[in-house]
């Protein structure tokens, strides 16, 4: 009996090491040829402390490289590594080379907080680029405020937040959801069905949308939430058919989108019958859902791979050259890339990596991003961004139907909207 257990254990160990070796091998071979530092990962931390150590500046990168969120966050990490690589090739910041310290948040919010603390206190990085879900940001926020660190957060989110230690390079609600609702009311119909995953972001977003529909003459015909990872939408689609909306505003997140769109098409509902506008479906997600079921549906973002600027052309080319021809760029990827450049520009302007000086220097800073000109708003540390509504084409790319013309001033608390007074007062 005992021998058997030992044998089992031995087998398990062998099997485990084979799998682990497989993973390891993958990282070095199929991975990223150009930005080599990503492979060295946490090993780069071995040098002695100090953000500006000799001719190097350490910066932290903290995304989920494993777990459910790895799907999305690995690409953002790749874009940030690429930006660091490019900056280094052009002589670095303040004449010093940037050294990325990569940590894995593992899709686990307490891990994000713990790793953030480690990056600031132990590695003494000058700044951190990281996070994706609102939960991970909320977990890191107190750490950055306590230690006076600096976090660049690259994803669109539900607003109603403005930490002095975070720069938000993704869209807040008035740069994505609010203009999208106005555009839909004008162009696609007034009967709205709100569909979302059952957690913070969709519920907060829908609270805002409902206020806005009230104020702008829309009609709410249904509001439904499904658990994360829900895969059977037949009943929900029956409800949609009964409610007869003209527009479905979709805040589903993750894999549920695949099931929803596949089953919507099976039920005989195409983009011509009901417009679905999504806020969490970008170029990366289209590849996993399948173009045939998404064609004609809409999305609201600040950047598409097809966005026509000279900066974007080189950005897409470089990204594909670094990570493979089959990769696509998307809004959060671009926002992550922007964050690195914005920080670098602020440091150059401040002449130091000191957090308070960098924050001061960042106010009003402008940069020609792949998605168009962006400006840091000194008041709330969000960014002026152009809003774009796009339609999914048969090649899996978006065609822009509308844009806001000029970068929109970020307003995380929706203070300039009268109908939103009940929302912002509850902050």
């Amino acid at each position, binding site marked *: 009996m005992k021998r058997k257990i030992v044998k089992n254990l031995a087998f398990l160990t062998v099997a485990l090491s084979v799998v682990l070796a497989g993973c390891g091998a993958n990282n070095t071979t199929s991975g990223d040829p150009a930005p080599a530092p990503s492979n060295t990962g946490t090993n780069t931390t071995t040098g002695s402390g100090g953000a500006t150590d000799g001719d190097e500046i350490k910066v932290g990168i903290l995304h989920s490289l494993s777990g459910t969120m790895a799907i999305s966050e690995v690409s953002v990490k790749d874009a940030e590594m690429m930006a660091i690589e490019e900056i280094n090739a052009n002589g670095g910041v303040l004449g010093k080379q940037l050294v990325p310290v990569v940590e894995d948040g593992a899709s686990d919010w307490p891990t994000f907080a713990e790793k953030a603390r480690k990056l600031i206190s132990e590695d003494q990085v000058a700044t951190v680029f990281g996070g994706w879900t609102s939960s991970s940001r909320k977990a890191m926020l107190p750490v950055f405020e306590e230690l006076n660190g600096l976090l660049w957060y690259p994803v669109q989110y539900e607003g109603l937040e403005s930490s002095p230690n975070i720069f938000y390079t993704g869209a807040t609600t008035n740069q994505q959801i609010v203009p999208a609702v106005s555009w839909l009311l004008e162009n696609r119909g007034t009967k709205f069905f709100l569909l979302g995953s059952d957690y913070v972001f969709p519920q907060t977003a829908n609270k805002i949308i409902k206020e806005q529909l009230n104020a702008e003459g829309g009609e709410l015909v249904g509001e439904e939430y499904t658990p994360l990872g829900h895969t059977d939408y037949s*009943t929900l689609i029956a409800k949609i058919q009964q409610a007869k909306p003209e527009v479905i505003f979709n805040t589903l997140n993750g894999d549920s989108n695949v099931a929803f769109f596949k089953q919507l098409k099976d039920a*005989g509902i195409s983009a011509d019958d009901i417009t679905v506008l999504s806020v969490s479906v970008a170029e990366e997600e289209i590849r996993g859902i399948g173009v045939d079921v998404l064609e004609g549906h809409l999305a609201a973002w600040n950047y598409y791979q097809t966005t026509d600027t000279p900066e974007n052309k080189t950005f897409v080319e470089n990204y594909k050259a670094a990570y493979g021809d089959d990769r696509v760029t998307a809004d959060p990827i671009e926002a992550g890339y922007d964050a690195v450049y914005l920080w670098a520009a602020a440091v150059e302007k401040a002449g130091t990596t000191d957090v308070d000086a960098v924050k001061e220097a960042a106010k009003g800073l402008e940069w020609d991003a792949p998605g168009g000109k962006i400006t840091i708003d000194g008041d709330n540390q969000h960014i002026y961004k152009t809003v774009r509504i796009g339609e999914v084409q048969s090649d899996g790319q978006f065609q822009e139907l509308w844009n806001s013309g000029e970068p929109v001033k970020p307003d995380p608390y929706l203070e300039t909207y009268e109908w939103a007074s009940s929302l912002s007062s509850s902050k």
Partner: protein
Amino acid sequence: MEITIIQLFNGLSMGSILLLIALGLAVTFGLMNVINMAHGELIMIGAYATYITQNLFNDYLPASLFNWYFVLSIPVSFMVAFLIGWLLEVSLIRFLYGRPLDSLLATWGIALMLQQLARTIFGAPNVAVKSPTWLDGGFRLMDGVVLPYKRLFIILLVIVTLVAMFLYIYRSHAGRRMRAVMQNRDMAACLGISTRRVDSMTFAIGSGVAGIAGCALTLMGPIGPSLGTYYIVDAFMVVVLGGVGKLVGTIVGAVGIGVTGTMFEYWTNASLGKVLVFLCIVAFLQWKPKGLVAMKTRSLD
């Protein structure tokens, strides 16, 4: 009126999907008593096998044949999952018979390893499987009632799989040996049946059926490394409710959960509907701890 028909059909359809994902588990857990947490990953393997078959058709065969990839992918998914299930049994599961807690932990570990393996081979993002055009659209029963062909196809696939399993278990020699071993292992061994071979065969068949489920699920849902985790709880729920060890119970359990689940979801919402279903199951198991169809057995355990 229309909505009643649609919801009845949706319930039946959900029941058929539940049945398909639970059938394999009804064999490995129900008959063999292995708490197989890697069942979901065997479903995932079936889905990826379908994805590979699709890509091979895309690359090497004329476009006119593309629509038929799905017909071939069903046996391919079965075979791939069958082989991996067999490998698992031979290398690990066979050391764990009669130790349910150990097998729970070990198979859970296997599940994590398989997920990471899929992530390494296919990448973390979902992959797309284009469904064949002959499954697009739906059957128009009456005005406002359209039954999607894909859901009809899955119901048909479940029936065919069930019939094949019944024939195998109750009408074939191999099936008789299998039942003999499951009922009384020592006696069957005394009568000259190789229980080792029967065990590995049974586990492999259960795994293979999970592969078929994975193939069918590519029509309805996401195909990614964590696909299995979405279905594993439902699968166990069906088998436990139906009564461990009886295929009939699994059928009744799946259709029951499907129909009541869609009804609850229609009356309330998706999150609450699921809670109500679980509540009903808990209450039911309090009343009948052995599930819908209890296995009569003379063994003392």
